[in-house]
């Protein structure tokens, strides 16, 4: 009884801010201006298939890069002397204390045709390179913004893989590489899964970053949704339908991810 009453405010919160908005989105997605049922919105999501695919593709690349950069960082962090750990973790989180728009503007001024990098190249007598308005710039922006979301869950799992297990593995003849492959990495899988989720989900629905760093050629599905609700091509019905589809895509990706994770637990050991 007690537990239920304690959960009550949370249930209200969930109802108000999660269930009702979701219901509204679903409602909008299947209705037209006159609130009549229609499948037209859902069907015309197909027109945005290319953008949707590109969003998934860039989000996937960003996620992989975050994992590749984030894992060693998180590992190093977890092996620091304890008093250093909190300080360094704070350094990792520090950029997030600055508004992400500002951070992205900063990247614009670095990557622009007349930005920091190109000015430097010119002053060295080298040719300019086109950095802004590319997919690479979008990926860079995503990795920069979402890397902490990868590092934190990995770090917290890795700190729990105590030295005693590493020692036990070494004791049984495992070289440092084997210790990593057979003990540390399998035990950090929950961190990998949640890190990947926490990067991929916001990355796949990214907007603004893509508009600012990727230009009009690299708009992502998030930007399209943004435009449908706030932009010139105002159409909340279509916007809702795209959101709904995006949600389905994310759910499918997460489902696959968990499948992979479960299968792994036994598989890693052979």
């Amino acid at each position: 009884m007690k537990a239920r009453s304690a959960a009550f405010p949370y249930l209200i919160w969930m109802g108000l801010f999660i269930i009702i908005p979701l219901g509204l989105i679903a409602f909008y997605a299947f209705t037209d201006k006159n609130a009549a049922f229609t499948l037209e919105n859902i069907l015309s999501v197909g027109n945005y298939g290319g953008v949707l695919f590109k969003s998934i593709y860039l989000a996937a690349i960003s996620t992989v890069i975050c994992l590749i950069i984030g894992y060693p960082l998180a590992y190093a962090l977890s092996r620091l002397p304890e008093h250093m750990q909190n300080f360094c973790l704070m350094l990792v989180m520090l950029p997030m204390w600055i508004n992400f728009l500002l951070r992205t503007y900063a990247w614009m001024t670095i990557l622009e045709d007349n930005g920091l990098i190109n000015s430097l190249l010119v002053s060295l007598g080298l040719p300019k390179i086109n950095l802004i308005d590319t997919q690479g710039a979008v990926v860079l922006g995503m990795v920069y913004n979402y890397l902490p979301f990868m590092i934190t869950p990995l770090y917290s799992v890795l700190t729990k893989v105590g030295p005693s297990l590493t020692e036990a593995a070494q004791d049984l003849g495992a070289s440092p590489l084997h210790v990593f492959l057979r003990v540390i990495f399998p035990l950090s899988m929950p961190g990998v899964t949640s890190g990947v989720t926490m990067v991929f989900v916001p990355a796949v629905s990214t907007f603004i970053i893509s508009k600012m760093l990727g230009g009009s050629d690299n708009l992502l599905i998030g930007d399209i949704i943004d435009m449908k609700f706030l932009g010139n091509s105002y159409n909340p019905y279509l916007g809702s339908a795209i959101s709904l589809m995006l949600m389905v895509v994310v759910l499918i990706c997460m489902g696959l991810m968990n499948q992979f994770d479960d299968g792994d637990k036994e598989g890693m050991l052979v």
Partner: protein
Amino acid sequence: MNQNPIVSLRNIQVAFDGEPILKGIDLDICDKEFVTLLGPSGCGKTTTLRIIGGFVTPDSGDLFFDGKKINNLPPYKRNVNTVFQRYALFPHMNVADNVAFGLKIQKESPTKIRTQVRDMLELVGLKGFEHRRVTNLSGGQQQRVAIARALVNHPRVLLLDEPLGALDLKLRKDMQLELKKIQRETGITFVYVTHDQEEALTMSDRVVVMNDGVIQQIGTPQDIYNEPVNAFVADFIGESNIVDGIMYEDYDVEFAGAEFVCVDKGFQREEQVKVVIRPEDIEVVPVDDGKISGVVENVIFKGVHYEMQVNACGQTWIIHSTRQKPVGSVIGMNIAPDNIHIMHRAQDASAEPLGEEEVRL
């Protein structure tokens, strides 16, 4: 057991955070020997094992394995396996995979691995537990998995850090016999840590008594029990009555207001000494026949014997006897010459706090 040292520690010193933990450990462990490190909590037993295992590098001193200095050889290159005090089982593997870990690293064939793992689990009494998750096992079961996981690799030296601590008395006795049998049959050198003195005495070829980072005595269980070199050892190995005495001349000692014949010699005339008498070595006799007389203050039934606290000459004595005397009765006490153990007082320096008190429980 033969006499070739397989592991030698030479003046090993270790400090953690500036605090000396091992203060010059010298120890030779012979091939096929069962050596037990015995001592109170925090005396450095685990640290000594970790030196041999390669997890702690000594600040000074040398470690030899088969005559080769291995101070800096990483643990995975040492032919040594460890049963860790806190088990350190791999939580993401089932019982069989835990036990198979070392064999898989050695790239043994799957069939060999399977049979060895099965045999080993049977040996530690966990037959049929292959596919259980280690996280669901009881402490005692986890401990036996840890034993199996180390033993299955047939190392030259096996380090066991209180490997039976989590087992109930009956299972512990069984496993003691089992481990001793395995050790004898396989010829693996065992370095065994315990703070259970009875376990140390029953299982070991030699016992190393440690206190506060210093080895107090090395010897066979009989040596340690019968000829403790100082009050600390005497007190730690079973209960003892430790009293002040004076050695008049060879074979003649006075304590508790009476003169006794003893078997010790080589002391100075009238030297102040400590006298150690085991509780079971005091004979209870009628008052008139006893050299010492005292009043029974307390009697506890201990199963095999009664433990009596007897006040004599202003001290409390502990006596183990199969017959009890009622509380308040006056009894006589006699001690046979070879049950009187004389120690120099100077040797007590390292165990001063214990030596101070006349009799310890």
